């Protein structure tokens, strides 16, 4: 298993009202190329901060210590000592010499480019889509920016992406605006935009939390299929350990900014080592769980 990125001793602090709050404390972990990796935690666990740090999207006011080392073989950045391609070259083929570098506080060996090397899907699709831009244009813009296509090629690409995320009537959807779509459809569009440039890494940060159970299951199935087809690495950030267990091969459990437990899904679910992981599993209310009603002894 070749590592895609290697995080060492990562600490992130935010300044809030004059005091410093540590959102992540001395986190070290590796994400392997092509794996489905879940980050689990409750609110305040630092799971979203980790996702943002990996994507290079932390707010400028945050202080970052430690390192995130990328092992992307084909980054086209000045100073990157790109070895001969190991993975199929997807992003570099049209980028030419034009490169841009995003300022980032993180000490990284080679910083990948958000949107091209990393696709990010947020919890609220309404907030990540431009309300006054047609769906097709939003997706085409990503393809055009990162793949160097012409507008007509980009639109063709956008249409094929909408077909891939199984949006009904992709031709109509190209011209539709976000408010005309349901929550689940908007999230499909957001996923299409995230994968438009063929990223190596897809980060889904609570991407299904705002959706109802049926749509959530559909989106999870879609993510699973897209990741498999494109050979992407998946970082699935969620508060729901049962949902993560259905999708991920490895699970990292976070609490109060610290990595509590990391292991293969089967091991985490069947024999958790840490008490907190056990508590999370016990708190899950599955369909087969013992009803609280009977435990409480309440009868009508």
């Amino acid at each position: 298993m070749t590592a895609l990125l290697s995080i060492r001793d990562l600490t992130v602090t935010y300044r809030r009202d004059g005091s410093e709050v540590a959102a992540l404390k001395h986190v070290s972990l590796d994400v392997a190329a092509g794996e489905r990796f879940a980050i689990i935690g409750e609110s305040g666990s630092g799971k979203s901060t980790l996702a943002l740090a990996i994507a290079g999207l932390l707010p400028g006011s945050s202080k970052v210590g430690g390192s995130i080392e990328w092992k992307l073989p084909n980054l086209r950045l000045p100073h990157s000592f790109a070895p001969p391609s190991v993975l199929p070259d997807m992003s570099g083929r049209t980028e030419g010499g034009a490169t841009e570098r995003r300022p980032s506080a993180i000490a990284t060996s080679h910083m990948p480019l958000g949107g091209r090397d990393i696709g990010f899907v947020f919890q609220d699709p309404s907030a990540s889509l431009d309300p006054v831009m047609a769906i097709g244009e939003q997706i085409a813009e990503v393809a055009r920016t990162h793949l160097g296509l012409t507008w007509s090629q980009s639109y063709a690409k956008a249409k094929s992406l909408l077909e891939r995320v199984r949006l009904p009537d992709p031709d109509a959807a190209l011209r539709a605006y976000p408010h005309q779509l349901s929550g689940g459809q908007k999230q499909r569009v957001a996923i299409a935009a995230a994968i438009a440039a063929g990223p190596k890494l897809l980060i889904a940060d609570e991407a299904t939390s705002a959706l109802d159970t049926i749509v959530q299951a559909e989106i999870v199935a879609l993510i699973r299929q897209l990741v498999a087809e494109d050979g992407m690495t998946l970082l699935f950030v969620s508060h729901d350990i049962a949902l993560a267990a259905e999708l991920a091969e490895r699970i990292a459990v976070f609490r109060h900014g610290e990595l509590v437990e990391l292991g293969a899904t089967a091991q985490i679910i069947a024999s958790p080592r840490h008490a907190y992981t056990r508590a999370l599993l016990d708190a899950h209310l599955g369909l087969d769980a013992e009803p609280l009603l009977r435990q409480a002894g309440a009868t009508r």
Partner: protein
Amino acid sequence: MSSPLLAVSGLTKRYRRGGKTIAAVDDISFHIEPGETLALAGPSGSGKSTIARLVLRLIEPDAGHIEFEGGDFLSLNGAALRARRARLQMVFQDPLAAFNPRAMVARVLDDPLRTHGVASRPERTRRIAALLERVGLSADLAARAIHEVSGGQRQRIAIARAIATKPSLIVLDEAVSALDVSVRRQILQLLLDLQRQERIAYLFISHDLGVISAIAHRVVILDAGRVAESGNARAVIGAPQSAIGKALVAAAPKLNRTSQGAADRQ
């Protein structure tokens, strides 16, 4: 058992959208007995939140009857309706949005007491402290601002506010969906304790069948504003008959804690 606590029949609410009339709630009937939990389940757009708002008279139906505590609830107006509201309360999904962003904890609990003419100010202060302790919080919390307390504490305060006027029915609209799993279980436990001790009935609205099967007596599964099926919660969830019921059960995340992880199947 005598007459039901809440009897809803033929409830209908239509919206006009782009020249077309859509029935968000279409001829729905159900009833709730005292001290019972009835769950409304369904995907988004199935009409469950609209039903909650209709039952609470936050919006008015186009057709149907609502009988509450033996009286016609829809015929009440003005002061009579406001007085009756003491018996029929609600807890919202997002505990932050459900409170005035400028409010103090003491004030949100004082509002129902004052509105329903509870005694003097010192008496209300005493009752506020008792309410906070009733939902497992420290009475000191009264002096804090709503935005300062945690999400779980906020939802407990929302429950304290709902039980302040000694209601017989509380509508819980996705009341635990936004909470962390560990907090969620504690809140459900609190709701069950309150139900057992005060004989409060719940209309529990959720898309999460796991939560419903844990605390509901009966369930009504909705699809596109209509009842798809209903019955004993464990029985319906164990063996759903309707297409939407089957889809909901299939979609619920399942933890297989004994065998190997589910991730390997593909």
